[in-house]
């Protein structure tokens, strides 16, 4: 293949990767920013979204579109509910202590993974894309659904942005992020905000899962990949810094696509990981932050 089509393919793959990554990392970054905890189970929330999408489509039947729309509504609700329960049953009990929550969320990771393995089995579950068309370039064909994923991700990120910057709830979240104690003295219900943020982060992860399932299939081990990449994005973007997270997701997503197609996919992973090390050394606060955090 010539270099022109190769770059086109790289850009397409990179954009799809970047948008899914941005959606997944957004939830992780939000949870870290507001609650100051690292959620190791974040990738499993993507996986739960994907598995639920499959289950809902199976249950409803009647056309790929209806089932998929139902999954887009129901899966984030269930996963958000799971997150609220986890917040109430686990995270609150360990006092949101950073170290203990790492271990606790690791427990949640295994719980989610093994429960899905025991109930849904080890096979990858395919879900038909709700709208399917193939774009036939002269050099290669490309799934049109992947471009729908990009549009949906941009829409969801914009909606999250709107909630954070234009609603009272968003104001509370930002206040809690800046200083939870002072926010509480000003009457911000910090506990409820924690639960809401954890649920919102989980719902975003679940939505990412629902969106990717027609591309990737649902599988109980699929959470590992999004977790690793989201961590890379969140670290490079500056922990808890949403604008930085979006920038990092775009750079890393498109960069990975480019290196994968033009050179080799393994090299892309190596470069992404090296980038983290580099950012941690040169700009410990993340790409967009001036001062070290």
């Amino acid at each position, binding site marked *: 293949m010539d270099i022109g089509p190769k770059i086109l393919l790289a850009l397409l*793959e990179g954009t799809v990767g970047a948008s899914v990554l941005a959606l997944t990392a957004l939830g992780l970054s939000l949870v870290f920013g507001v609650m100051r905890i690292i959620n190791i189970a974040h990738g499993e929330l993507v996986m739960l979204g994907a598995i639920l999408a499959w289950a809902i489509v199976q249950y409803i039947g009647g056309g790929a579109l209806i089932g998929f729309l139902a999954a887009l509504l129901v899966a984030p609700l269930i996963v958000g509910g799971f997150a609220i329960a986890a917040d109430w049953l686990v995270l609150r009990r360990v006092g949101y202590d950073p170290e203990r929550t790492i271990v606790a969320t690791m427990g949640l990771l295994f719980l989610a993974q093994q429960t899905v393995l025991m109930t849904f089995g*080890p096979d*990858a579950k395919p879900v*038909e894309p709700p709208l399917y068309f*193939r774009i036939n370039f002269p050099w290669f064909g*490309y799934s049109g659904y992947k471009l729908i994923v990009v549009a949906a991700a941009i829409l969801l990120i914009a909606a999250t942005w709107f909630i954070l910057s234009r609603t009272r709830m968003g104001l509370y979240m930002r206040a809690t992020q800046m200083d939870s104690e002072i926010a509480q003295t000003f009457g911000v219900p910090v506990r409820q905000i924690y639960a809401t943020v954890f649920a919102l982060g989980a719902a975003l992860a679940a939505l990412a899962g629902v969106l990717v399932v027609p591309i990737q*299939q649902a599988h109980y081990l699929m959470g*590992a990949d999004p977790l690793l990449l989201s961590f890379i994005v969140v670290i490079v973007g500056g922990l808890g810094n949403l604008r930085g997270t979006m920038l990092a997701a775009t750079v890393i997503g498109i960069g990975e696509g480019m290196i994968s197609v033009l050179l080799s*996919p393994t090299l892309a992973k190596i470069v992404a990981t090296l980038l983290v090390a580099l950012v941690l050394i040169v700009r410990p606060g993340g790409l967009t932050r001036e001062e070290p955090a």
Partner: protein
Amino acid sequence: MSNDTRGTSYAGTRTLINRRSVLIAAGASLASGFIPSALAQGAPIRIGLQAHLTGIGASYGHWYDKVSKAAVKTINDAGGIGGRPIELIVEDDATDAKRASEVIEKFATQHQVDFVFGPLFSHVAASSAARAGELKLPLLVASETSELAAGNFNRYVFQVGNTNVRSQVTAVSPWIVGNVGKKITMIVPDYVFGYEHRDVFTETAKKAGGEVSAVIAISPAETSFTKYFSQIPQGTEAIYHVMVGPGVLTFVRELGEYFSGKGPKLFGFIDSLEAVDIASPGLEFLEGSHLWEGFPRYAEGLPTEFAKNYRTAVGIDDNGADAANPGDISTASHMFGCWESLYAIKQGVEASGYKDNKDKAKFIEALEAVTSFDESDAYPQGTKTFIGKTHQSFGRQFISRVEGGKLTVVHTTKIEDSMYETTADYTSQPF
């Protein structure tokens, strides 16, 4: 606070004692009920199944477990091994090489089994084989690794059901070059299993007049594949694909999307589609392409009485899916290895007069003396030539065409097609 703690620990100890005494009582009552019936049939032969129940091989492990339990039931119902029932103990190795050697150790020391069988993924099987050799525990791998016949394992390891990668590829190469295409790009998993495919096919394709123009190795844990396809060189006539892992369906679908139905012809190993419904949405483009099978998934591909009995015992329907759950597609081309391994253990025990693990050497010599496992209810995949020196079976292979979302066998290789020269000789190794 400190009082509280003491109180809790006291309560904890009390429950423990209670639990322990209950357990002892339960154990005693169980044993008293169990011993007479066991004596009537002779003490059980303990056999360990090392299965990939979790991890990237879990789709296989699920079926290895099922087939093994069916075989044990069939053997026990027919009187067991030399009058002794089989007691099957299943351990999960998480498709992980490190865990595999721990599982072998657990079988040897804790479960004290007589024999172990079952590891499939070649890097896992290699790890199990090494540990089994050290612990002198007979191990029948249900793998496809060529390392055994190459002499890289030890005298305690056998492969009786599944033919290895080198012989599969040797058997089907001339057909691929003759019928699919001469300029070939290979897509293989990025570990020893994929490298075996690469090395053997590059050599055998050349012999048959073809040429491998590129090899693309992809990690079995990969989830997105389109980015690799730009490496397929122009002018490729055929793509030889063999992927494993949870992403196989995505892999095949993206391959179809990428070429939009006008690309090179495809020849795949069924590994790329094991446990996957051929009629899945997005796989329509596979129509007319060819796949290697080790054991035909669809009943009409191998319409023998033996295969029929095997399917009934395992509980798979004519489409190779779980008879009780048609959405659960089997790993037909691999899992028969578990069935045949158990029957080979039976054959070895009965021929050698094996009583307990002091007779290990006699068991191994008895298996080494076998020259052929004959097609029967015990060996439903077909007759195999067995080479005692290399501990490896050679059987027939199947090439199937995708027709109407199903697989139809179009060519069956002869056993001789899959044989190749080896110099290994395990029989000269001391026990």
